[in-house]
């Protein structure tokens, strides 16, 4: 053993070096927080000053928080950075995760928090007993219909499915006005055709579930097969679709409404419009879905997860959750970040309770697979 003692010193030196680096990182973090809070309210400045003085917050919360998120990284990372800055908890994020990953890992739970853009996925996990409820402060700011029974998941922002179209290529009345329209082959003939996402996309899964609720399985499968045959582009995500439609690569695309908001904010390629389908008398209404947060049962950092749930329910952070996605906050007290968003009250929505999506989740993925849309890209 003594022979290897000489190894001890370099190892110790490395350890010290690593510790030194770590300390550096911490310093920079607090410096960052200081800079950030300058832009925020004075109240928070005071708070952070207090925090620095007593180190109370840091003593309460440390360690890490593992977040699985099914949403696009662009929408979530800023929120997680904000949490990290304000609490000192190190956030480790896995973006664009599938809800079924939590099912597969249930014997070896990895995630503390799961963030999803599909209530179907959230409620499905809840029914599988993989989520954990809680009594959070400020929970009442979210209407009960947007939460699971014991707050196992809480939806914070909402969206509707619809058609983004390029105004240079087609006019509003040349865009389908209902989901049913897409059965028709004629839409394959619009200039450059239309675009949809791959069937594995969370938004598409919710869309198909809603149609199954409305039409039953057989007709829905025919619909999936129709769009699979007729779409000119099948993309990995909705961001690709809004950019492609904006650039004139396709005449229109099936997306969530906030992708339209995002495209309008672009410096160019922004001559786009949006059609909320099925708004007529007696029609089913636009298909709605929501994005929300949930606490994973048995996660490794349960305390931090609880803190995160409370933190994200603070109104300021509810807005940060909506963030760059430009969705509409569910909390009616909050101003939507995109001014021209159509208020939820003015839209005719499908009369399905969002929770119902959870009952459809698993069979929907199977149906999409049977229709062959799960693997196509084009």
């Amino acid at each position: 053993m003594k022979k290897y003692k000489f190894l001890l010193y370099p190892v110790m030196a490395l350890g010290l070096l690593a510790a030194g680096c770590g300390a550096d990182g911490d310093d920079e973090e607090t410096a960052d927080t200081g800079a950030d809070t300058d832009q925020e309210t004075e109240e928070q400045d005071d708070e952070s000053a207090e925090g620095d003085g007593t180190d109370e917050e840091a003593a309460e919360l440390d360690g890490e928080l593992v977040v699985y998120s099914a949403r696009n990284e662009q929408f979530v990372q800023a929120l997680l950075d904000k949490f990290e800055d304000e609490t000192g908890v190190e956030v480790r994020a896995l973006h664009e995760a599938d809800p079924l990953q939590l099912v597969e890992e249930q014997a070896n739970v990895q995630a503390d928090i799961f963030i999803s853009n599909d209530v179907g996925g959230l409620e499905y996990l809840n029914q599988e007993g993989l989520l954990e409820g809680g009594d959070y402060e400020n929970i009442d700011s979210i209407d009960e219909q947007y939460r699971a029974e014991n707050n196992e998941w809480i939806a914070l922002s909402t969206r509707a499915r619809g058609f983004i179209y390029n105004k240079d290529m087609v006019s509003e009345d040349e865009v389908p006005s209902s989901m049913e329209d897409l059965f028709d082959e004629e839409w394959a003939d619009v200039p450059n055709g239309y675009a949809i996402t791959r069937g594995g996309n969370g938004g598409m899964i919710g869309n198909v579930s809603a149609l199954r609720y409305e039409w039953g399985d057989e007709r829905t499968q025919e619909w999936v097969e129709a769009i699979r045959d007729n779409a000119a582009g099948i993309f990995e995500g909705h961001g690709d679709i809004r950019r492609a439609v904006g650039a004139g690569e396709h005449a229109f695309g099936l997306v969530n409404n906030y992708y339209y908001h995002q495209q309008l904010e672009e410096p160019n390629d922004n001559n786009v419009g949006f059609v909320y389908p099925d708004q007529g008398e007696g029609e089913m209404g636009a298909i709605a879905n929501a994005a929300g947060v949930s606490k994973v049962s048995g996660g490794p950092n349960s305390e931090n997860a609880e803190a995160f749930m409370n933190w994200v329910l603070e109104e300021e952070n509810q807005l940060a959750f909506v963030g760059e996605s430009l969705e509409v906050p569910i909390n009616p007290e909050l101003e939507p970040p995109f001014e021209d968003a159509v208020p939820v009250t003015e839209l005719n929505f499908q009369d399905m309770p969002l929770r119902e999506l959870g009952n459809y989740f698993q069979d929907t993925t199977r149906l999409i697979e049977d229709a062959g849309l799960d693997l196509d890209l084009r």
Partner: protein
Amino acid sequence: MTDKYNSHDNQQNTGTNAKVGDSRSPALLRFIGRRWRAVWNGNPPGLILLLAGLVVALIMSVPIIYVAWRSLFAGADSWLRLLDGRIPALLWNTASLTIAVTVLAISIGVSLAWIVVRTDLPGRKTWQWLMALPLVIPPYVGAVTYIIVFGPSGWARDLWEAVPFLGDYALNIYSFWGVFLVLTLFTYPYVFLIVSASLRRMNRNYEEVARSQGYSTSKIFWKVNLPFLRPAIGAGAILISLYVLSDFGAIAMLRYVTFTAAIYFQRASFDTASASVLSLVLIVLTMVILWIEVRTRKKNKFYQTSNSYREPDTLKLGKWKPLALVYVITVFLFSVALPIGVLLYWTYIGFEQHVIDERFFGFAWNSLKVSALAAVVAMVLALPVIYLKSRYPSFISTGIDKLSYAGYALPGVIVALGMVFIFNTHIPAFYNTYYLIILAFVIRFLPQAMQAGEASLSLVSPRIDEAARSLGYPPWKVMLKVILPSIMPGVLAGGALVFVSSIKELPATLMLRPPGFDTLAVRVYYEASEAIYYQAAPGALLIVLVSLIPLRYLLKKY
């Protein structure tokens, strides 16, 4: 029990050669001992060395065996569902792409090698290494640059539309042709390098005989040169077709679906049964290619007579000179100048946008960490395998050697899939740690370390081992204390190869990275698929620059 007996026996064996069978041991053990020595031709390795080799072989092959195993129990339901619709379509997509890329890459590779090695092309010495350069551009990086230039909103569209009579922009990069072109442009150097090396070694005598028979140059090429080049072309073709089968990044970015992409997407949506069924089909496909290689190698044996070797003469291009030059320059423009130019442009923009920040260095550090550790582990694990193979030949050491190649021949998605299965269900402590990425890299690239080490080891005389053994060292100690120092340069070169391959690797990293642990390759894939090119380019450029490291080594090897 038998192992114990044998090791005991070995030590006796090394000490004094005479006392073979211990009179006290039972007859059965003695019989097994004798058989054991017969297997090793009377020279069995020590227990520690053998165990080390066996452990390596086990680690290398288990993920793949596990995937195959699971696919067999995926249930008839999964099999039928996939066989019905999915597998035929995927088979067609995959096979047609593989064949098309291989054929075109061979044509480009062989013709370029011929022009550059055998003709009086101006600047031929420079072209010889310029034409190998696409090797340092990972195809998924190449695909990004092609999307930027030829994509539906790319620079080419603006040019196209500026020309009045062309009408609508008609190039579609997201098609079979796009994938075909991109994969060909970034894989042809495999053939080019191997064929150039063969051409340089070709004996002039045969050509002169042919010429004396009145053969024209083109006839000589088809009748004399090409048959000689067949082994080299075959070797290159295997490398290329195996690469096309395993590619994930380029095809996914160009929205083409082959088996690897299908497996990745099935895994991403946790349809593990389907993913393993598709994997088994892909494993079989790979085996078919490897089998073809073995078959053709057996049939084609050509001998070069070394005693009358004369260097081949340089052919005059004459009026073909401008055309040859245009051809070479065109390939260079599309496979090197264009991608590097695009990367430089967007890196510059990224630099101005300050994307090369702390976060970027974090990703670079992660890449560096896993790749460097993988290189070190691969160097260590390669040693017992190559030492066993070279000094203790038997079917056991050959088996260990073959099993160590399992992950090298098969796509990264399958290795990763196997590791996810194993670690999630059986070894949860390591699940979701970056150690899994390192292990995947080692399984994927260990043979690169082995090949480099073997080349060095073949230069060290076994007499040195014998001398050390006679002084009482057990085999593993001989390997570490006597052999290792003299083959260190080769081992390090192997480590460098593993390092570079690891830093480029994409699909296994994507599937195995723990939360919050992104590498440069993952970021390039993500940013590019979100069309945020100024963020993707710096990382991609860095990967290309790092890949330049082993180029000198590769150029020397061939």
